[in-house]
């Protein structure tokens, strides 16, 4: 699709928002994504022009920019919110974990966790960010400042065989990876092949790990998980025979325990990147597919969260994706299948073809996403 230059309506908004992004690469990334989205025919242009003639369009535009609420529309009112999944109950309360040592180069914890600080870096501070009540996505979002969940990643980086003779090579690759992760502020934590836990982006700051992403726990929905979720990456290639070493699994377990204890994170808000990643360009889930299958939930001390429903599907109308299915070994997660069925039922209840119903849900994603970004911008300004 050819990207068109943004028109008079959207350009001032993009200009305003882009100017608030300090990093030139992030700024370009934002503009390219936003102008691509703006090139898609989401808005009835004919209708907008008629509104423009009435002279109220500038008022609406500035309202979009200044008010941190989703834009009211007739779309939302036709979406049945009563058939949402119930709020989840956490059957797996976090253990108590406390700090033993906090030295300049490392930290240790009561559960045996040791965190190396050699690669720590700062990034944009985690300012207040918006979370949305799942059953009333058009209501005023709640503001949070603490992490609410964990996203597990795999680095999919170049690997050497996990053998003693390769120790030097394994160390070289691991350190190269850590340098790169620090450079692009990709994750809060990296667990290397030897199970050593490195803090990279400090927990008080945002890491650029999740991209376009959605999670919901029945009670609250989270859009754009960079702000609210801690990123834990395993140095691993998930399509290899043994993606994780025993040391990595142990480290993942004690790190997860510590983070859950520190921020009171519910087990159902600990998810994999594949579960939360979406592609707004094509309206499909699973843009990133790391840990689409094979995540060792039980060994990490968590329930099988592949069973959980996906808010991206049931609340925002994203569709299943063939490449995700393939990455998941040809088997749909239980939670995904349930979410797809839920949307089918919702569409029937609303008396709409499933396609049309999904389109309406996806427009809601656009609204909520804009609201989340604008809220964050306002928070940073204040």
């Amino acid at each position, binding site marked *: 699709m050819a990207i068109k*230059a943004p028109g008079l309506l959207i350009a001032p908004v993009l200009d305003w928002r882009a100017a608030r992004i300090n990093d030139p*690469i992030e700024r*370009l990334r934002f503009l390219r994504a936003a102008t691509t989205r703006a090139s898609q025919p989401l808005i009835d242009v004919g209708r907008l022009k008629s509104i423009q003639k009435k002279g109220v369009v500038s008022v609406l535009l500035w309202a979009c920019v200044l008010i941190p609420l989703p834009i009211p529309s007739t779309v939302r009112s036709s979406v049945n919110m009563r058939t949402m999944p119930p709020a989840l109950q956490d059957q797996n309360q976090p253990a108590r974990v406390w700090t033993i040592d906090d030295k300049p180069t490392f930290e240790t914890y009561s559960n045996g966790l040791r965190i190396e600080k050699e690669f720590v870096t700062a990034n944009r501070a985690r300012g207040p960010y918006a979370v949305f009540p799942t059953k009333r996505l058009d209501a005023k979002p709640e503001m949070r400042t603490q992490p609410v969940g964990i996203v597990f990643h795999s680095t*999919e980086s170049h690997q050497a065989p996990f053998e003693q003779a390769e120790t030097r090579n394994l160390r070289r690759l691991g350190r190269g990876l850590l340098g790169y992760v620090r450079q692009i502020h990709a994750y809060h934590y990296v667990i290397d092949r030897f199970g050593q836990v490195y803090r990279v982006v400090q927990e008080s700051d945002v890491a650029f790990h999740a991209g376009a992403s959605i999670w919901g726990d029945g009670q609250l929905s989270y859009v754009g998980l960079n702000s609210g979720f801690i990123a834990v990456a395993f140095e691993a290639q998930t399509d290899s025979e043994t993606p994780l070493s025993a040391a990595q699994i142990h480290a993942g377990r004690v790190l997860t325990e510590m983070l859950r204890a520190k921020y009171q994170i519910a087990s159902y808000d600990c998810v994999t*990147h594949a579960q939360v990643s979406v592609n707004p360009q094509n309206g499909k889930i699973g843009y990133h597919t790391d840990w689409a299958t094979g995540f060792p939930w039980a060994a990490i001390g968590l329930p099988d969260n592949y069973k959980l429903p996906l808010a991206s599907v049931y609340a925002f109308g994203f569709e299943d994706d063939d490449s995700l299915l393939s*990455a998941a070994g040809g088997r749909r997660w239980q939670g995904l299948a349930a979410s797809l069925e839920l949307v089918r039922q919702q569409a029937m209840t609303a008396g709409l073809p499933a396609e049309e119903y999904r389109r309406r849900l996806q427009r809601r994603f656009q609204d909520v996403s804009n609201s989340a970004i604008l809220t964050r911008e306002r928070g940073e300004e204040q």
Partner: protein
Amino acid sequence: MKHAKNIGTVVGLDVGTSRVVLAERLGEEFAYESQLNAFVAIPFSKITASVLEKEGVPHSVQNGEIIIHGNESEKFAELMNTEIRRTMTRGTLDAKEPESLNLMRQIVTALTGGPADPGDRICFTVPAAPLGGEGNVTYHESTVRHMLEDMGYQTKSINEGLAVIYGELENTNYTGIGISCGGGLCNVAMAYLSVPVLSFSIPKAGDYIDSSAAAVTGERANCIRIAKEQNFHFNGYFGEKIQQVLTVYYDEMISSLVTGLSEAFTTAGNMPRIGRPVPLVLSGGTALPAGFRDRFEKAITGADLPVKISEVRLASSPLHAAAKGALVAALAEM
């Protein structure tokens, strides 16, 4: 991070007629390396080959000749009193040089230090089509892409003028005009909030100035180029023949650029309405002479373009702006 399958190096590559420049990011800083996109052929002898080997001069042996490429080619051209040859002409691969692709590969390898590792990504510049024509840009782009992919890179291409905008105009949210005055072509692009809205190239650039001035003065084009890069400046003093001739052809190039911009604005069908003046940034080796910016500003101020220009400025690092922009594009979009 599985979508970007492997974590690897990300680099920007400005593939110019005169130079190939590589940009990479080291921490918060950008770092550059460049090689002349040129070579010189000398008759083969075992002694010469062994001396070159010993001295670490990049070369290859082909068809009974020793080919010295990259930065060393200029020195050897001077020594042998011969013209350097180029892998490209007028912004694209030179079809008359059968080994051009092979030599370019060696030049790129000299910059990157070897073949790519899995996950390494590269964004390379391509010229815009000439104003009012198609040219063979598509063939050039696909050949260079194939070469880089064969070296193991994931690739992406970017218009050279747009790369200048991405490299230099972050403060205006990538809105403005970028001009790269190179050896074979001058590439022009305009973008609005990062979206390219027009681009074109003109064949009057550094090589045109050199060859035209050489024809008038009887000097070798290579000597003119060196004189141009080392001594030339716009000062209105025409006492020295080469300076005088260079000024004439520089003015012709500037005039063609301004006329081209005016024509492009007239023929562009989907120009957005930009409610404010936009900056224009000049880059490339041909934009280096002292006084060039002033000369260009004077010419464009009198052109009455439909878009107002807020400032005309030289890129912060004119030889590296396009490579930096290619790197920025790679980091943002690959």
